[in-house]
């Protein structure tokens, strides 16, 4: 009985505190909602995400189905029409369908690679910022090396030995783009480390792990979320360039960059739709993430605005 009442007593208190805590995020959300371009970016991202998830329900064709073998020459490089909204490619594959399925690839790589780089970057950055000294020197040096690293060469070297595949793509992008997260995390940790509540936690005997994970990380989350949102955009861009060069996702998978490269051959002879629509898709998605990320930064860190 006693225990129950105790819980009851504490529970409202916790809830109260939670509401107070949430209100900071709520504040941010209110600020974000006022930011029109950020909302536009968010809408773009959400629409594309939904399209990727529900791809089979919003397309009429199979992304790998080469219609020329069934329908003949009329299906080859057909211009945009009611049957094929974005036209068809030289094999009679529906470009609208391929663009929609292509979003799956781009988003998968975008999120997975960002996830990997956030994990690596935040862990290394926090260690560097928290312990300082020798550890900081080594990690900062490593960050600088990664920043200066020629990414394309790295991937080229990788695909020379390993067959290009989705996991290889996001692993390789992930382990090479964590540097910006490490920098952000390190700077934030150094700042937060000096705060009274961390000192307090140290004073009551909290271990390093507990302090980092319970007291520091939750307080540096906002800038990392912002950084991650912006990073997704640039990683999608990177994936597209790799596919364009032929080192990324391999045919017949409908990667946007690869479609642009294939379609480019026909661009000059007037069949612009093969490369233009995937190009617009890349632009929309990257723009969406960038606008959203910018808006998030303004919303989560009101000081920057002033």
């Amino acid at each position, binding site marked *: 009985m006693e225990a129950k009442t105790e819980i009851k007593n504490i529970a409202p208190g916790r809830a109260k505190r939670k509401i107070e805590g949430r209100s900071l995020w709520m504040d941010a959300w209110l600020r974000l909602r006022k930011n029109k371009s950020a909302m536009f970016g968010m809408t773009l991202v959400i629409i594309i995400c939904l399209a990727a998830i529900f791809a089979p329900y919003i397309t009429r064709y199979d992304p*790998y*189905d*080469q219609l*020329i*073998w069934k329908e003949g*020459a009329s299906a*080859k490089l057909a211009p945009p029409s009611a049957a094929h909204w974005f036209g068809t490619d*030289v*094999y009679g594959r529906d470009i609208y369908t391929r663009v929609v399925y292509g979003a799956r690839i781009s988003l998968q790589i975008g999120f997975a690679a960002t996830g990997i780089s956030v994990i690596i970057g935040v862990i290394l950055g926090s260690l560097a910022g928290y312990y300082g000294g020798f550890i900081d020197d080594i990690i900062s040096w490593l960050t600088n090396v990664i920043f200066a690293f020629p990414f394309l060469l790295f991937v080229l070297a990788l695909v020379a030995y390993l*067959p290009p595949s989705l996991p290889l793509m996001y692993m390789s992008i992930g382990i090479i783009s964590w540097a910006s997260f490490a920098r952000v995390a390190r700077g934030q940790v150094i700042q937060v480390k000096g705060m009274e509540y961390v000192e307090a936690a140290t004073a009551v005997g909290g271990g390093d792990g507990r302090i980092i994970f319970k007291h520091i990380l939750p307080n540096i989350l906002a800038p990392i979320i912002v950084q991650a949102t912006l990073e997704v955009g640039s990683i999608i861009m990177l994936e597209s360039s790799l596919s364009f060069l*032929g080192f990324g996702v*391999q*045919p*017949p998978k409908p990667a946007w960059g690869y479609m642009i490269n*294939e379609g*480019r*051959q*026909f*661009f*000059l*002879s007037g*069949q612009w739709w093969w490369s233009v629509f995937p190009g617009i898709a890349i632009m929309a998605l990257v723009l969406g993430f960038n606008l959203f990320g910018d808006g998030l930064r303004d919303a989560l860190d009101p000081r920057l605005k002033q």
Partner: protein
Amino acid sequence: MFKKSLVLLIVMLLVVTTLAGCGQKPAQQSGSEQQQQEQQPAAEAPKNILRMAIMSNPPKLDPVFATDTSSSRIIYQIFETLVDYDKDGNVQPLLAESWDISPDKKTYTFHLRKGVHFHKTIEGKPTANGGREVKADDWVWTFNYILNPDTASPRAYFLDMIKGYKDYQDKKTDHIAGISKVDDYTLKIEIDYPFAPFLSVLAYNTFNVLPKEDVEKYGKEQFNFHPVGTGPFKFEQWVQDDKIVLSKNEDYWKKDKDGNQLPYLDGLEFRIVTDLAMEWTEFGLGNFEQIEEVDDPYYADAKKLPGFQEGPTLGTYYYGFNLTKAPFKGNKALRQAFNYAIDRKGLIDMVRNGRALPATGVLPPGMMGYDESIQPQYTFDPEKAKALMKEAGYPNGLKVELVYNTSEGHKRIAEALQSQFKNVGIDVSLKNIDWGALLDATDKLEIPFFRMGWVADYPDPDNFLYVLLNSANIGPKGNYSGFNNKEFDDLTNQARVETDPAKRAELYKKAESIAREEAPWLFIYHYTTHSLTQPYVKNVVLPFFGEYSMKYTEVKMEK
């Protein structure tokens, strides 16, 4: 005082560098013009250089070691053979003015042209031979060099019918018995048995006369980078993966009908442009006089241009199965399944704009031994392919990697076939590598499934069936599939020594039938050839063997 002058100096430096920067800009805009000026520092504007875009860096410029068309293209300009072809594929004199063939067809006597000189200079420096005249001794030396087992020319075996070839190869003698000098301008070649396409073989681009002094000076490794021959153009520069520059040979032996010195052109510049869209765009801008390949997207537009020529050629485009490696080793049903799985006609019409002929065998149409009725005929039959897959032990399909050399055209074909294979349960993944790397790997039989193509070196089925599939030629000699069939070997060997054309044709038909049945390749299509030049380029003749063997001796530009 010092401070002031220092400031003045800095200001002057800034001004000078800024001005220099401005001055450079207009020059950089016309990139091609600038390059021309770089090559020819002479005062006169070098407008008479034919610029051509080629698709890949040629693997070899030394004719003794070249085996592919991108190398031959350059070699044809620098080197010369005893005989070559007219535009209908008939043998015509080149460095041999005429020849006599003995009644038993085993002795050939060549009367050499007088006044043929080796290049006096290359790369602006005198050559070791000093520009001396070519005599019978040079031919004797050259053949002894090419056929020497230590030289290890991959094409020496083309001449294995020459008397004493075997003894020379086995190092029993220090020279080949069948080749001798009669006098300075007469060369005698004896062969073991009457070999019908012998003259054609001599026209092959390995058997060029070479200057002993320069070959010895540079050695086997370096002659490739400093080739010296007798041809209408001299070697000037080879920037790897960028360009090859040749200049006019002023001492060339040939004059035109009116007695004007040939060649008309001052030089040739081959630029390596791997991207076919780029080739087409640059051609449109007038930055090239000729481009190697009109890619399918631009075919319809190119066809309307006055400088476009097209014709059939003796060649076959195929995907090779490696018969020494899994999964194709010892699995005929599987190889046949591949052959039934693809719609050749559809592929050619849809993806290649109808610019080829469907292939269901090795020999191209127009070749002796080609017969439409030879069985089996690989039609498009997915059901049969599926049945054969079951028979082959792959009822649930199979995964295999196709290796092809980098080119949009090859990729397009591969992607179309990929989807057709999928229909019968074959999951083909694609991997592209550089042409040189692909040749290296296929020479060593390292790749299970690879893209390859073959165009005739001489217009005889021997060049296809014997060279590409006889077990004596496994590896770099041409049998990249490692095909080894006793009956086939016997037939093709027999056909080599047979003199009766009708009997030869019969033997080749039988051999062809075995090749089709055993399916060491996925037969895809037979080539056509085309050339695209600017309208002001005159005397362009589309050669019988394909555009790559074009000679520029009489080509001129009239702007």
